[in-house]
């Protein structure tokens, strides 16, 4: 199988520089990484045009993010590339943790069935970006993607934003209502704004290598503490499509990155991991990592999304997945604001909800880092005690931390949430992403609940609950399960939702629910959740 072919995206002289009429868009997006591209598509699904500028003209060099979590896949599905990712990616849900060469335990990240998407797929970031770029092309009137357009600086006032852009043909200025800073971990905009990127730097260095080889390793995540092939350190193995394996090796704080990257040093290390199988090096990098975030993600008309706002260590796969949560959370709100449906105060809830989510990701990732590279002394003693106890005591397995992998953020405390009824005794809660479930369509075809939620607001009616059509507010879709339309084919809707009326946000989160819904309750919940200008 051929390795990935990097096809440069064409640079086109922007209209501003070849005498055509300058363009403007309600939203300017800086950065065509996964987060900027996903934001452009999400906005387009709401009919909101954007101009995306990126200083580069190829997809991510190196595989970088490979583990995409179930929740991100649901979001990608809403954006139109979920099935493509699922088809190409390596599906997995089982993680095995070894101490030395002995397995101490394994964990199943999605023990129940009845969900369209698996716990995780592994798919190189370059494929994800390629699919996103191709999806952008489905919206030629809404997404204006400009490669080799570098943002130099941005300014804003009450009326809008102005972005100074540099291209091979010279500079020009773009104007818009809002600007999304999706310019990654080294965000120029963050530095221009002088924002502190607070948190922690971890000294530990890691070697990360993608190797191409024929092997019959199962699709699982394997993590070793102090394996014999890499004494005293940790190691991680992941399978990717195209017979590519990701190998992560902890090197300690004193490793010299330039030396470690040299093939003559990398190859012997990899040989020990793969036990003599022939392999080719595809990509090598040595990194140390940070867990940091800026204080606020919303700065009036400039909004930080993805790595520009927060970075984490990679062991929970919370970087790219966390950024996808940002996109999901922000775009419907921004769409409502730029189209005048909601007051700009709605954007404050993006700040609150995603700062909360980022903190959750940072604390999980930091704790994993500490467990993986404990300080000598008592920290090491507790770490090693937990590891050896894990061999034969179930409780210690739960303490061993080889990565707390990305799970959907629970917005149970969000100010946007409305009514709840304590009579519900089901897994689904207010503030959580709606749980998927298999359905059959009125025509008898297999289908999934999630495919019918999101985009706009939905009132989901389950079990014996009833909802009078006359009290459904304008613009809200009703989805009835059971009563002559969609059929709860495996009883999972009943098990996960019970009987009730659920108000589901455009980002598929449940924001309120009732055993018996009335017009007032629904209207109040909706206006609370939308900072609506008309309500």
């Amino acid at each position, binding site marked *: 199988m051929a390795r990935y072919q990097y096809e440069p995206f064409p640079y086109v002289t922007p209209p501003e520089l070849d005498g055509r009429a300058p363009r403007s868009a309600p939203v300017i997006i800086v950065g065509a990484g996964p987060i900027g591209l996903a934001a452009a598509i999400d906005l387009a699904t709401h009919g909101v045009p954007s101009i995306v500028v990126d200083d580069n003209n190829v997809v991510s060099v190196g595989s970088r993010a490979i583990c995409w979590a179930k929740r991100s896949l649901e979001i990608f599905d809403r954006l139109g590339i979920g099935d493509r990712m699922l088809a190409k990616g390596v599906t997995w849900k089982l993680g095995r943790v070894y101490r030395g060469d002995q397995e101490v335990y394994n964990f199943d990240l999605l023990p129940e069935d009845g969900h369209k998407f698996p716990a995780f797929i592994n798919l190189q970031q370059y494929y994800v970006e390629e699919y996103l770029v191709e999806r952008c092309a489905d919206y030629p009137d809404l997404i204006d993607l400009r490669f080799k357009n570098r943002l130099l600086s941005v300014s804003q006032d009450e009326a809008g934003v102005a972005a100074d852009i540099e291209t091979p043909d010279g500079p020009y200025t773009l104007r818009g209502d809002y600007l999304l800073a999706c310019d990654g971990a080294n965000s120029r905009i963050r530095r221009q704004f002088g924002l502190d990127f607070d948190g922690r730097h971890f000294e530990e260095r890691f070697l990360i290598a993608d190797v191409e080889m024929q092997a019959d390793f199962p699709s699982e995540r394997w993590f070793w503490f102090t394996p014999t092939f890499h004494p005293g350190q940790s190691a991680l193995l992941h399978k990717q499509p195209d017979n590519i394996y990701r190998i992560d090796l902890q090197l300690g704080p004193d490793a010299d990155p330039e030396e470690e990257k040299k093939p003559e040093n990398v190859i012997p290390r990899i040989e020990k991991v793969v036990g003599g199988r022939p392999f080719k090096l595809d990509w090598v990098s040595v990194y140390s990592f940070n867990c940091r975030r800026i204080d606020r993600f919303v700065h009036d008309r400039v909004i930080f999304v993805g790595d520009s706002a927060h970075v984490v260590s990679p062991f929970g796969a919370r970087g790219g997945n966390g950024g996808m949560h940002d996109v999901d959370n922000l775009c419907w709100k921004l769409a409502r604001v730029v189209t005048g449906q909601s007051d700009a105060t709605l954007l404050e809830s993006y700040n609150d909800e995603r700062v909360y989510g980022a903190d959750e990701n940072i604390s999980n990732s930091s704790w994993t880092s500490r467990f993986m590279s404990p300080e000598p002394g*008592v920290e090491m003693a*507790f770490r090693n*005690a*937990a590891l050896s*106890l894990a061999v034969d005591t179930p409780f210690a397995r739960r*303490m061993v931390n080889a990565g707390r992998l990305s799970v959907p953020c629970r917005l149970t405390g969000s100010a946007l949430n409305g009514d709840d009824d304590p009579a519900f005794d089901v897994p689904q809660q207010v503030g959580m992403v709606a749980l998927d479930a298999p359905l059959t369509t009125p025509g008898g075809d297999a289908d999934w609940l999630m495919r019918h939620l999101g985009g706009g607001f939905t009132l989901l009616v389950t079990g014996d609950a009833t909802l009078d059509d006359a009290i459904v507010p304008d613009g809200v879709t009703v989805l009835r399960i059971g009563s002559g339309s969609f059929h709860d084919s495996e009883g999972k809707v009943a098990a996960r939702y019970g009987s009730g009326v659920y108000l589901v946000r455009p980002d598929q989160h449940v924001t309120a629910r009732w055993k018996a819904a009335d017009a007032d309750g629904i209207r109040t919940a909706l206006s609370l959740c939308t900072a609506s200008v008309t309500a």
Partner: protein
Amino acid sequence: MSLNIDFNLGPDSDKLFNELLGAHEGLSREQSEQLNAGLILILMNHIGDPGTVREAITRARAALDR
């Protein structure tokens, strides 16, 4: 549940104290540290109640300042 700070071990308490020390016999300092750590994790899990465990940590910590 709250932390029981009254005597709770019965007639075997001296013996247990001794057995605890005995378990460390012949160990390096590092091994001893790990043994203690393992013991703490096992007991902490056995207690289970977070409030009780926190109270124990606070008490043990405060005793250092005396």
